[in-house]
C-alpha cells in the first residue's frame, strides 16, 4: 500500500507553487458542486484520474483509493435505483426497479463529484511538501508561531514513532503480554506504555524549546525567509485555468 503522504518527484504538479495548488484545491471543490451536467462531471473525474495516474503509476495501491471507488459506485447505484423522477429509461416490471433519466444523471453527478473531491485531495497531498506549504503560508501572513507548530510536529512525529516502537519492544522483551486476556491486567497496559512515551516526548519538547529560543525564535513579531517556493508562468496559467473553469461551471 502507498501511504497518503508527500512523495518527492519532478512532475509539473510538484513544480507548481504550493499556494497555487491550495487555491486549486479550494476552487475546485466549489466548482465540482456547481457542475450540473453529468458529462462534464465525468470528464473532470477522468482528467483527475489520469493526472493521478501520471503522478503515481500504481493508482490502485494508494491507500483508500479502492474504498473511494466502491463508495462512489454505491452512491451511483443508490441514485439509480431510488430516484424515480423524470422520463423512464428502463422498466424491469418490478415496482422499485425503474431506471429513470434523472436517476441516471444524478447518480453519475453525485458519484463523480465524490470521487473528484477525493482525487483532487490525493493530488494535492501527494505532490505538495507540507514543509514548503507551511513556509509559503507563513510568507503570506499566517503568524510564524502557528506555521512552526506544523513544521515541528512533522519533525517530531517520526522520532516519537521510533521511540514508541522501542518502548513496545522493550516491554515485550520483558514479558509484557500485550495480547493478554486477563481484564484485571488490561488496565495496566496503557499506563505502563504511555508513561515512558510521555516522559520521552516531554524531554524532546524541552530540548527543542532550548534549541529554538537559543536561536532567537520569537525575538521579533516577524521573521525573514530564505527564498523557498518560486512562482512562475505555470502558476499564472494554473490560476487562469481555474478561473475559466469556475466561470464555465457557473454558466452551465
Amino acid at each position, binding site marked *: 500500500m502507498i501511504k497518503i503522504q508527500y512523495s518527492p518527484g519532478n512532475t509539473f504538479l510538484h513544480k507548481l507553487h504550493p499556494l497555487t495548488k491550495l487555491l486549486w484545491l479550494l476552487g475546485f471543490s466549489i466548482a465540482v458542486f456547481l457542475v450540473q451536467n453529468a458529462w462534464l462531471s465525468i470528464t473532470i473525474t477522468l482528467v483527475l484520474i489520469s493526472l493521478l495516474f501520471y503522478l503515481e503509476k500504481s493508482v490502485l495501491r494508494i491507500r483508500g483509493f479502492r474504498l473511494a471507488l466502491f463508495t462512489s459506485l454505491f452512491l451511483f447505484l443508490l441514485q439509480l435505483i431510488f430516484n424515480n423522477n423524470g422520463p423512464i429509461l428502463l422498466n424491469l416490471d418490478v415496482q422499485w426497479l425503474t431506471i429513470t433519466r434523472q436517476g441516471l444523471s444524478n447518480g453519475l453527478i453525485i458519484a463523480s463529484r465524490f470521487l473528484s473531491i477525493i482525487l483532487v485531495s490525493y493530488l494535492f497531498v501527494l505532490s505538495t511538501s507540507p*514543509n514548503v506549504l507551511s*513556509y509559503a503560508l507563513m510568507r503570506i501572513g499566517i503568524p510564524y508561531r502557528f506555521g*512552526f507548530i506544523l*513544521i*515541528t510536529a*512533522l*519533525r517530531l512525529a*517520526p*522520532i516519537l514513532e521510533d*521511540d514508541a516502537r*522501542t*518502548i513496545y*519492544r*522493550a*516491554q*515485550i*522483551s*520483558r*514479558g*509484557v*503480554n500485550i495480547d493478554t486476556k486477563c481484564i484485571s491486567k488490561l488496565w495496566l497496559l496503557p499506563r*505502563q*506504555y504511555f*508513561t*515512558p512515551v510521555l*516522559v*520521552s516526548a516531554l*524531554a*524532546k519538547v524541552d*530540548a*527543542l524549546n*532550548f*534549541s*529554538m*529560543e*537559543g*536561536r*532567537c*525564535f*520569537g*525575538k*521579533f513579531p*516577524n*521573521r*525573514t*525567509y*530564505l*527564498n523557498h517556493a518560486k512562482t512562475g508562468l505555470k502558476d499564472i496559467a494554473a490560476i487562469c485555468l481555474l478561473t475559466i473553469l469556475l466561470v464555465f461551471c457557473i454558466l452551465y
Partner: protein
Amino acid sequence: MIRFIDFTFRYHGKNHDTLSNINFEIKKGEMIVIAGPSGCGKSTLALALAGFLFQQDFGLVMGSIEFEGKDISKIPLFEMADKVGLVQQNPENQFCTLTVIDELAFGLENRCLPISEIHQRTQWALEVVDGQNLVHREISSLSGGEKQKIAIASMLAAKPEVLILDEPTSNLDPQASQNLFVVIQNLREILELTVIIIEHKLKQLLPYNPRLIIMNHGNIAEQIPLRTYLSSKRPRQTPQTDAHEYQHESLKVIHVSDFSIAYANKEILSGIDLTIKEGEFISLMGKNGAGKSTLLLSLMGLLPLSHGSITLLGCDLKTQSVSEIAKKVSIVFQNPDHQIFTDTIWHEATFAPHNFGLLPSQYEAKTQRLLDACGLTLFKDIHPNKLSYGEKRRLNLVSILSYNPKVILLDEILIGQDEDNAYFLLNLLKEHSQCGGVVIMAHHQPDLVNAFSTRTLFLDKGRLILDCPQALTEGRLLELDQPYFLAEALSLESA
C-alpha cells in the same frame, strides 16, 4: 571572558544543590573539557552558561556568572544567543526544521537578517564544518556524524563567541567522532572560538590538550591539563579473563545460518553465519548504520527474516512467540527512559520475573542481592524517574538479570556513562557470562569493552567481515583497515 563567582544552583523540588560553589574562569579562545560522573551537574552548567537557567524560574540561584564583566542573569536570552551557542546532547532532538538549508537559516531568519546575509552566512557555516555537500539534503537522510555537523553549523551561523557542545560524540562511531573533533579543532584555529565540550571519551581529545575540569556532586573536583591527567591515571584492574573463563563443556546457544534481513527492499544484513556458545562475551562493533541494532533485534525474534534461520537452544526462532523467546533472551536499549515502566524501583526490578510468572522465591533473593550490589537498595520504594541517568542504567540491568535469561543483548548501553559506571556495568555482565550466560554488546568503546569480551564481531554495510577471538582482534582490524576501532588507536596517534 567568562567567570563563575561562587555560583550555586538548586532546582525547585530538589533537596540538594545541582551546582555548588563553582569558581573558575574561561579565557577567550580556550578549549575546555568538562567531565564527571553522570548527574554531576555538567549539563546544568551548560544551560547556565547559555543563559537558559535564568529565563524561567527553574530554581534557586546564588552567586553569579559574568560574561565579559556583565552578569549573565541580567542579559536577555536573545542577546545571550548571539554570544553563546549550545549544541545539545542528541542533535536529533534539536532540529526545528526538515531540511539542512532551513535549519541553518532558522536562527538567522528569526533575527530578521536580510536574505543576502542569510545566504552568505549559511554558506560560510557549511564551509567551516566541511559540509558543503549536504546543502540540499533533508535532515532525515543524514547520518549521525552529518547531523552533528549540521547542528554545530546552525549554531555557528549566528557567529557566537563561545560554543558549548554537550556530549557531541555520544551517538557516533569512533571514526565519525574523530572526524568531528578535527572539525572542532579547525573551528578554534579559524575562528578563535572558545569551545567548551562536555565529554566522557577523554582519550580522543588528547591531541588538542585542552584544560580538563572534573566535576563531582556539583563541585569542581579538579582542574588540570588533559595530558597531565591521563598520564597520571593508573590503569584499571581488569578482570583476568583467562583464569575465570567458563570452563564447562560449552553448549551451543545460538546458531545463525545464512541469514539476511531486508527492510523496504533494502538489504540491511546479509549472509550472516554465526555460532555462539555458553560463556561468551561478544563485542559487536561497526560504523553507525552497519546493522548492529538490526542483528540484535532479530536475535530477539523482533524482526522477520528474509532468508536463513536462527536457532536458539536447539529450537528454530520462527516457531516461538516473542514472549517465549523473552524468557531466554533479553535486550537492553540505549535510552534508559524507554524501559522503565513501573512506579517503584523494586517493582521495576521484579517486573519481568513477575510477568513470566516466576515464584517470588525464585527471584526475590537474587534481585535483592543485585540491588545491593548496585547501591539501589536504599531507594527501593522511590520512583525510578528520581534516579540519575547512571543509576537508571544500572536498574535496567538489574531488571534483566533478576530472572536470569540465557542471552543478554545490549544496544549501546555505555552511551553517556562515565568510566566508573561503565566498568561497573561491564563487571556485572562479565559475571553473567562467567556463569554460563551469553552477552552480546553493541558498542563504540573498544577501550572499555575489550578487557571484558572474549570475541569480536565486526559488521560493515550489513556483512560480518570479522569474527575472531578477542586476542586476535587488534591485528585483524588493522588488516581490515579499520584503525579507528582499535582501543589504543587514539593514544597511539598522539604519541
